[in-house]
Structures are given as structure tokens and as C-alpha cells.
């Protein structure tokens, strides 16, 4: 029963909330640029329109091209099941392993890159090649950060990490958590393909990565791709907020009210992070593609520092 509830809550919350994050980020950027900007819910409208549109499919492409959106979407949503939005609701048996989460997302990326190559278009190939490079560069820092957090909770289970973090007081006060948190900020920026790694708004081939990959998509396929992208972004954000800023004041409370309250707090925290991301996007410019590795190295160093701190502090 609780499992069912958990799944339901997860799917609903994350799918519904995901586009909003983008909205918030866009809004913040617009305001800082003295523009009115698009409404918060703009993305919902876009998706709705795209759903209605008919899809244009390149005749070069194969079944992989059409299967990819669904696979990517489902992997993203499945990943969403791995990171509880609120630790108040727990499933009976929780198979939410962080490493599996990463490799699950890898499945989606695998197909996305293939789809980029499938249409034999230059843009697609370019995007795929760049995506492959960036993702493989980010992989070590993600794993190391996750492992470091996992070491503290003596397990690589996401749920364990979160609950342990709750008892750790204010985690961000702790050096390990702090450093890893910084590492994670970089990771989020990269994974959700934002400035300085990638520019979601551009259509200039020099700067395109993610956009280039899905350039051939249209209609509902495009909608699914966009949606799963933001879902992935939200998954990472959720991971971060529930580990690094847990709402431990709710420990012990039970009942629907508590859950609602925790969800509310969760939404607030998500918005905070989105603003943070927006600030990063505003304050930096897009890097050259070949200086992305520096960023990856930075995040890896941060996570590795975290690990070293763990070695020193936890004995």
C-alpha cells in the first residue's frame, strides 16, 4: 500500500513540478535582465501545444528514433522513483540505489545519443559526440560524490543517505557535505545542460549540445524529450535538497498533514535551488566546449576533497 502511495506521490509531484522549475529559472533570468519575461507556467503551455502537434519524422531514421523519447521519459520517471521527495512516506521495500540511479539515467542518455546519430544529420552527430564527452567526463565526480555521501550513511541507498543526513544536524555546516554540495551544483548545471556548460536557449551550432541532439524531434516526441529533460533536472535537484537541506524539524510528526507540510517545504527548497541555478546562469557565460573538462575537473576535485575530509573526520 505504502509503496503504491509512494510511487503515486513521486510521479505526480515530480512530473507536475518539473516544468515549473524551468519557469522559475526563466523568470529570474528575465527579471534580472529588466524584462517581464514569460509567465511562470510557460513551459506547461509549450508542452500542451507540442502534444497536439503532429510529429515530423526523418525518413532516414529507424525505430530507435521513435522509441527514444519514450525510453528517455520512462527512465527519467523511474529515476524519479529513486529519490523520495519527502522522507515521510517510505515504500515497504526500497530498491533505490544511487549507483543504479546513475546507470539508469545512463540508459536514457545512451538512447538519446543514438537518436542523435540516427537521423544522419550533422547537428545530431555533433550533439551526440559532445554529450558523450561531457557525460563521460562528469561520471567520476558524480560517482565519487555519491560514494562519499554513501560512506557517511554506510550505504549507497538514496533513502539511507537522506535519513542519515537528517540526523546530521545542518549538513551544510559540515565540511564534507558542504564540499560535496558544491560539487553537486556543478553536476546539476551539467546534467540539466545549462550555462556555462550548455545553452538551452540557443540555436547556434557552436554552442548547442542537448538542443542539437534533439533537433530532429517535433511534436509529442519533442514534448517528451523536453519533459524528461526537466524531470531529470528535478530529480537531481531533489537529490540535492533532500540530502543537503533536510527538513529534520519534522522528524517524529506523522499523518497526512505532516506529509503535506513536508511536501510544501520541499517545493520551497526546490524553488530556492532553482533560483540558485538561475543566479549561476546569469553570473557566468558559456564556456568553450573544450574548457568544459576544467569544470568537470573542478567538480571532481571538490568531491574528492569531500572524500578526503570524510577520511579525516570519520574515524
Amino acid at each position, binding site marked *: 500500500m505504502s509503496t503504491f502511495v509512494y510511487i503515486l506521490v513521486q510521479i505526480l509531484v515530480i512530473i507536475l513540478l518539473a516544468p515549473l522549475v524551468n519557469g522559475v529559472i526563466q523568470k529570474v533570468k528575465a527579471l534580472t535582465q529588466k524584462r517581464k519575461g514569460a509567465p511562470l507556467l510557460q513551459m506547461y503551455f509549450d508542452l500542451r501545444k507540442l502534444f497536439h502537434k503532429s510529429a515530423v*519524422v526523418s525518413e532516414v531514421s529507424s525505430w*530507435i528514433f521513435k522509441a527514444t523519447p519514450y525510453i528517455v521519459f520512462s527512465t527519467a520517471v523511474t529515476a524519479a522513483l529513486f529519490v523520495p521527495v519527502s522522507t515521510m512516506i517510505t515504500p515497504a521495500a526500497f530498491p533505490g*540505489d544511487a549507483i543504479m540511479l546513475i*546507470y*539508469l539515467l545512463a540508459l536514457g542518455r545512451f538512447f538519446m545519443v543514438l537518436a542523435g*546519430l540516427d537521423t544522419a544529420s550533422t547537428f545530431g552527430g555533433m550533439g551526440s559526440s559532445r554529450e558523450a564527452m561531457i557525460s563521460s567526463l562528469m*561520471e567520476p565526480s558524480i560517482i565519487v560524490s555519491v560514494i562519499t555521501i554513501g560512506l557517511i550513511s554506510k*550505504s549507497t541507498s538514496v533513502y539511507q543517505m537522506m535519513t542519515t543526513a537528517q540526523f546530521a544536524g545542518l549538513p551544510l555546516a559540515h565540511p564534507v557535505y558542504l564540499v560535496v554540495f558544491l560539487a553537486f551544483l556543478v553536476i546539476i548545471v551539467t546534467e540539466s545542460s545549462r550555462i556555462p556548460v550548455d545553452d538551452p536557449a540557443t540555436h547556434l551550432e557552436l554552442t548547442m549540445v542537448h538542443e542539437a541532439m534533439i533537433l530532429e524531434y517535433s511534436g509529442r516526441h519533442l514534448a517528451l524529450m523536453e519533459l524528461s529533460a526537466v524531470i531529470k533536472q528535478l530529480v537531481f535537484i531533489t537529490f540535492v535538497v533532500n540530502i543537503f537541506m533536510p527538513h529534520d524539524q519534522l522528524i517524529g510528526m506523522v499523518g497526512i498533514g505532516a506529509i503535506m507540510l513536508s511536501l510544501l517545504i520541499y517545493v520551497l527548497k526546490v524553488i530556492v535551488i532553482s533560483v540558485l541555478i538561475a543566479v549561476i546562469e546569469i553570473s557566468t557565460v558559456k564556456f568553450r566546449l573544450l574548457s568544459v573538462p576544467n569544470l568537470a575537473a573542478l567538480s571532481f576535485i571538490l568531491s574528492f576533497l569531500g572524500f578526503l575530509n570524510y577520511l579525516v573526520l570519520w574515524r
Partner: protein
Amino acid sequence: MFQVTILLYLCAAVISLVLMKNHKLVNIVSNIICIAAALLGTAASIIQIISGHDVINLAIFDSQIPFISINLVIDHLSAFFVLGLSILVLCVSIYSIGYNSHYYDKRNVGLYNFLYATFILSMFLVITAGNAVFFFIAWETMAVLSYFLVVFESEQEENQRAGTLYIIMTHLGTAFLLIGFMVMFSYTHSFDIFGSSDAIPGFAKNIMFVLFLIGFGTKAGVIPFHIWLPSAHPAASSNVSALMSGIMIKTAIYGLIRFLLFYLHIQHTWWGILILCIGVVSAVLGIAYALMENNIKRLLAFSSIENIGVILIGLGVSFIAFAQNNLFLGGLALTASLFHTFNHTLFKGGLFLGAGAIQYSTHTKDMEQLGGLIKKLPVTAFFMLCFSLAISAVVPFNGFVSEWLTYQSLFANISPGQAGMNIVSILSITALALSGALAAACFVKLFGISFLGLPRSDYAVDVKKIPVTMNIGMGILATFCLAAGIFPIVFLKMVDKVALDLTGISIADQLQGGFFIAYYPLDISGSSISPISILIIVPLIILFAFLLMRLIGGKYVERKSGTWDCGFGKHNSRMQYSATGFTKPLRIIFRILYRPKREFEIEQGRSPYFPTSIKYKVSTEPIFEKYLYNPMLHFINNFSIKTKLSIQTGSIHMYLLYILVTVLALMLYNRLV
């Protein structure tokens, strides 16, 4: 049962010599016999593992020559490797029925099948050898037979060179093994593998460890002893390279486990750490080089190096754990590495078969010539996709489970108080992550470039239909990959017996049975993965997505159109990304490793803006060949020539002088003694 298997292989060999004249017949018959043998072997090994009794003595024959004897013994470890061998042989033999048809009336198929069967048999004997001498004999025989298979298509220069390099490297490795066995004998006075090694003093054990590591490492193709592998695997015909990469290099892993873990029990932590480091280097460099290859089979060969590295990482952790007699962790890591061995046998075998299918139908191994094959060979393409997913360790295929176990054992190996070890472990984790990601990129490239997009040359346009048997062979392997990914516990039970022999602790019981496979790092019930649940949830969500679409968007309307070409109007295959281009960013980032060299040839036209033709050639530099092996060879060569000419001068006076000098020297010796 095992005896029958051996006999079957033997008679397959004999028959293929007898029926040498009729190519079609001999091919089908001998392969069918091999299939039967493989089925029998599978059954026998499974029975052996499941059933209680530990060791079966198969055959014993002592000859008049001292120490030369035939002695087959099968315990759980052997049985497990026999299982892997049999499964792969089953699929490869089915595949070969169709595949060998391109040899008909071109080559001596009978001889080919003879070598094929005897090669399988020799590997079988290596795995089941009961004493070191017989192990050695089988080992060398295996090397020679595989050499013949490598040079079977001997017209091409590069095949000859590959064969020569291979046989030399493997023989040098074997020399180390020989010395190791000698040391073993000179202390224990017996070659019995199952005997005890207590008589051997510590320093000798260390020496033996190094010798065995080098000897088996050469066969396994760990860096820096890997140079033979990328040239030998492509040279062999594809079903054979599947066997070589699937089983032959695993016999080295078997040797490491058998002689280091079972025979000399682990002595020092540094053994494990050394193996761990070698594994890390092999994993990262192997896949890094694979990424730059455009020849499919060379790519696969390099990726074999990477997987050997992953296996060695697991093995290293288990060595460390056993050295600190943390039995449970040791068992877990051993299980992880053995399971990865098994998985690699499955998907790498499959990948080589797929590469063979591509070569069979397009007559090229060069990715730059391929493209769009998914429409011509849909079934093969699908299987290749499965294998590629499996080897890039993505959910829900078997590659992921073993890599996850490796992660977990490394994770559990990090415990407060031993800083150095922890650094090593975290670095290994990093290397594992990096190699995993690069592997994904590498196989995306493999599949995407050769199967998707538009054909890049005529090779990929007119494509020969491939026989159904080839697809069947691959299909079975693909099924195994998925099954091992979804019900890992079933296969882990097989591996488990080995760890049980060694430690007395059963790992599979600690891993929650049934649908879930879970592992409790430290007493808390912690991280656990459930591939099956993934397999249930993902389709459900896909369904849900469909419904969502239907609900919101209404009926699905599709419009076919050309790929967006910026209005250029003539979209052709040369516009798409090439294999070289795909990996360019990584090549630039890791230029320190690759040292890429690029050459432009521009034919100027009327104006500099419209050159008539541009040739662009980029090549990466093989570091080890250039800086390690070539200088060594050069030096030896010069030395040899110099000595030869200065000793064998051709002047008889010199020769008589030698005699005089020898006489005087001996007289002196006699006076002084």
C-alpha cells in the same frame, strides 16, 4: 559426462579431418558435434556445481617420461569456467554453421574445423588440468592452436605479423609460468595443483606471485603486456576471436584464481593492491584506446582489455580482503569478478559474433565505410544493441550487476583507519566510473556509426543476407545477457559455490534471494537494487506515457520528411558525423595520452575558398609500442648482428685461436682448482 564431452570434441576434430573434401558437410557435421558437446558440457558443469560432491577426478595417465602425465580434475571453479566455455561454444558453433559458409571452396574448411575443435578442447583441458605440468602442456597447446587460427588467413601481411607478435608474447609469458612452476616444485616436490603450498617459504611465494602475475597477465592482455591482443583478435576469423576473447583470455583469470588464491593462499595485502592497480590501468587505458579505433574488431579487442581490467579490480579487492582475512568481503569481490568474467564471456562473445556478421555481409571491418545497417540487418542490429547496452553496464543487462557488485565491494573496502588503502579504493572507483562512461561512449559510437544513419560507402549499400543460424547464435547469447541481468541471483548461485569452497561463507545467501538482489555493506540493511522491478516499472511508465499522449494530444499523426539540412537541399551521407569525428572532443581532451597527429592534403582549386579536394588524416600514437617495445627489439637486433659478425668472422685462424684460448683457459682452471 565430462569425459563424453571431451570425446565428442575429439571426434569432431577427427571427423573434420576425415571429411575434409566436402566442405559443406564437414562444416555442418563437426559443428553439430561441437554443439552436442557444448550442451553436454553445460549440463555436466551445472550438475557438478549444484550437486554436493566437490572434486571429480576425470582421467589419469602416467607415461614413462617423468612428470609428463595426463590428469584431469574438476572442482567448482573449473566447473564454473567450463559452464562459461560451454555456453559460448554452443552459441558460436551454431553461429559457425552459417558463418563458415563464406570459406566454402575458398579455404580448407576441414582443417579449419579441426583447429577449431582442438582449440576448444585445449581450453577445456587448461581449465580442468589437475597438475601443473599438464596445465602447462595444455596451455602451450592452446597457444599454438590459437596461433594457427590467427594466421589462418595468412595472405595478409598484417595477419602474419599479428600471429608472430602473438606467439612471441604468449611464449614469453609462458616462460614466466614455467619458472613459477619450477619454483613451486623445487619446494613442494610435487606439481599437484590441489596440494598444499605450506612448504614454500614466504619470499618464494612472492616471487611466484610476480611470475604468475606476469605470465597470466600476458595472456589476459593486461597493460603493458597487451600489445598482441588488439592485433591478434582482429586477425582471427570472427567466431574464433569470439572464443579467444570470450574464453581464452579468461583462462588466464582462471590461472590467477587457481594458483594465487587456491594454491598459494593470499599472503600480503600488496599482492591485491598491485593487481588492483594493474586492473585500474588496464581498464582506463584499454577503453581509452578502444574509443579511438575505427576497426570494429580492434575496438572490441581493446574493450576486452578494459573488461579484463574490471575483472582484475574485483580480484584485487578480494585479494586485499583475504589478506586481511575479511572473508565475507573477499568472497563478495571474488563473486563480483567471477560474475563479470562470465558476463564478459557472454556479451563480448556476442559482440564479436555481431562484428563477424557485419563483416560477413559487408566485407569490411572499417566503421567509416558502414552506416544504416539497421535497416538491412534488423535482427543482428537488435542483438548488437543488446550487447552494446550490456557491455556499457546499463540497466537492466548483466554487465550492470557485476559492475555494481564491484562498486559495492570497493565501497565496502573503504573503512576508516587505513588511509592509503582507501585512497587506492576511491581511485579505483573513479577509474571504474570513468571506464564505464567511456565504454558507453565507445559502444554508442560502435552501434550508432555502423548501424544508424546513412550508408557511408557501397560496402554498406549492397549487403549480403546473413544465414539464420548466425542470428540464432547471437540471439541465445543476448537472451543470456538479459536473463543474467534480470535474475542475477540464479547465476550468482553458480558463482557462489566457488567462494564457498574458498571461504566457507556463502555470498548468495547474504544477497537477498528471489526478485531482489541486495547487498548489505555493513550491518545496516542498506543499498539494494532490483532489476526486475525496473523491468516492470519502465514499460508501465512507457504505457503511461502513451496514455498521456492519447489523452492530451489525441491521435498520433506522423509526417515523413528528409532530415533537416539547413535548406541545402542535397542531404547526403557525407554530411553525417564520422567515427573519427565522433570521438574528436575526447581525442583533444586526452591528447596527452593519444598524441594525435593530423595531416592535411589540400588540392588548391581556382580560389583558396574552393579547393578541389581536401584529405584529412588523423592518427593516434601507440605509446607502449613506440616507447617500450620497439626500442627493446631494436637494441636486441643490433646486439645480435654485432655479436654474430664479431664471433663468426669466417677466418679460420680466429677459430683456431678460440681453441687455443679455451685450452689455455681450461689448463689455468685446472691449475687453480
